[in-house]
């Protein structure tokens, strides 16, 4: 914790060494976050680069209300959303009233995060963003709707679509694993 405070203080003073240490401490995890919101490694690294520049620019404003990890993660997610915003054409895809019947959970056991990441990256852009925000970051549909300036129904329908696609992919993966095991 003291080490983190020293890093923050060093970054506030624009010390290159502290900036590099902070980057090295958080960049690997943040790269996975940005990969979840992008389609390729290159795109994710661009997001990561832009996000860390924002981190170093605004670290003077970091008050320590939340952990540094979540503060940086929020910047990475917002940067990713901004970069994706022009690509997002979100509209309701299914009848929202039917969504209450979609209650089937997905079993993720036995799947590596790299496989899940690949599946997420293969989702359509809109579904991908909303799936990340709802299923992994834990935002509510209302919060997502406000964040992306869409209706709550659109968020729900996009998520339902994403989950259905993910289910198909996971089942396909399980079948292939089962076939390989036979």
């Amino acid at each position, binding site marked *: 914790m003291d080490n983190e405070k020293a890093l923050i203080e060093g970054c506030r003073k624009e010390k290159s060494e502290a900036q590099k240490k902070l980057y090295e401490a958080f960049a*690997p995890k943040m*790269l996975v976050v940005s990969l979840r919101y992008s389609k390729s490694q290159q795109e994710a690294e661009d997001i990561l680069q832009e996000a860390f520049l924002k981190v170093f620019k605004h670290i003077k404003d970091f008050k320590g209300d939340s952990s540094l990890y979540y503060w940086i993660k929020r910047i990475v997610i917002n940067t990713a959303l901004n970069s994706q915003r022009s690509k997002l054409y979100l509209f309701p895809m299914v009848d929202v009233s039917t969504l*209450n019947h979609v*209650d089937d959970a997905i079993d993720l056991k036995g799947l590596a*995060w790299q496989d899940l990441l690949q599946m997420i990256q293969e989702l359509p852009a809109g579904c991908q963003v909303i799936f990340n925000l709802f299923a*992994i970051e*834990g935002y509510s549909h209302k919060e997502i709707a406000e964040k992306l300036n869409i209706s709550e129904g659109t968020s729900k329908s996009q998520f339902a679509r994403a989950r259905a696609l993910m289910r198909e992919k996971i089942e396909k993966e399980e079948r292939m694993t089962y076939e390989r095991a036979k």
Partner: protein
Amino acid sequence: MNAQNNNSTNEWKEAFADAQMTPDAHVWNNIELELARSANGSFKKRILFFKLLAAASVSLAAIIGGAVVYNQFTLQSDEIAVTDSSADQKSLNNAQSTDQLSNNQMLLSDDKGHGVIDSDDQNEGTIHIADDFGGTKSNVITEVISEEDNEHNGQVAMVINDPKKDDVNSDNLVTSKPTYASNSIPANDPNSLDRIGVVAGYDMELLDRELNMVPRLDLGYASNRKSDKIWLGLNFAMGSNSPTGGDTQEQAQTLELSDASGGFQVAEAMVSEEQQGSVVIAGVGVGKQLGQRWILESGLAFSKRNTFVESNLAVANNGRVEALNSFGEASAEGALVFTDNYELQNTYNSISVPLQAGYLIVDGTLDLYVKTGVVNEFLLWNEVQDTDGKYNNVTVNAGSDSPYNVYILNGSIGSELRYQVGGNYHIALVPQLQKSLNSFLKSDENNAGRPLLFTVGLRFKYQFD
């Protein structure tokens, strides 16, 4: 449903809880470069203030100088003629003119202020004229002469006798056009608002307007300056140093370097051109008044010019890793190593002897000079240091074995706003542009790299009586 969603969310969260992947090295390199550029940008913003101040001062000097030249040119055609008494002293008593002068308390002005004739005597009066020091001096007007003849075209002449002198045949006869008395100005007379009236203060409305336009254009002040005045001063200036006057251009070369294990490392080495830095100058000065408006100044100053360079090369020198500031230097060094991108600072230390001529264009509470000349600069040494302090500093002395020229000739142009704070002491603001006429680097045979300095100086002067 919510519980199910929470479970689902937790499951996904857990799946990615420990997920991490090391980004490619170029991501950090790009971030580092952007941060360096950003830091340099904020530095540029800080020195922008000085640039703007210098530019504003030079512009002000140019505008006021132009106005002064224009005024002088205009005055030459309408100037009050000082006539030779032997030729023009004709003791004519013109009743009309005398009446005009005596019946109207008349404002007269010399270059410094104005006087009032307070006598109603027809031929004589006393004129009180403000002197340089806020007092008044009185002269007796012995005769007021008007000539209606063709020879002098209606000019009014006054003979003003200095009480200390009996000789009226000196330059005391002053003639001018008959517009002195305000109630005698014909409305349709094109000369009624001529420059004489303005300078003499008879048309107060126009005078005020002109004074507002160009404040303190009291041109006569300079005539009181003694040409043997000498002053000594302490000078301090700071500003920006643009090494090439242009933007940075990165230079990259692919180098193959041997490593400690005897293998080879091939990578792209990058050493940027020098980027804008700062300059600080401190010194002493001496100056002399050469004439009513001309001055000559010299002195001795010590200056520190900074520039910044980005590099990913360093010199391994007996276990020390030293900052490397140019490819020219790289070729001369035996043991180079690739490093992370870092920023290094060149600090050129030199002494200089300026020689400048100045011309007084505004003389008043604040004196304004325009100045130009040369600055002879002698480079002493350059200190190369990594701004983060990771690598060791290197000091490169000027001299025959140095990559740097010892003598650099600079041209300078600027202005000086001087204020007398009391007694013999003056304080002055001195914005200045200084351009090197030859390069700091011996290898730069075409003198492409000629730094440009923008400085704003503060000077404290003591003027000997």
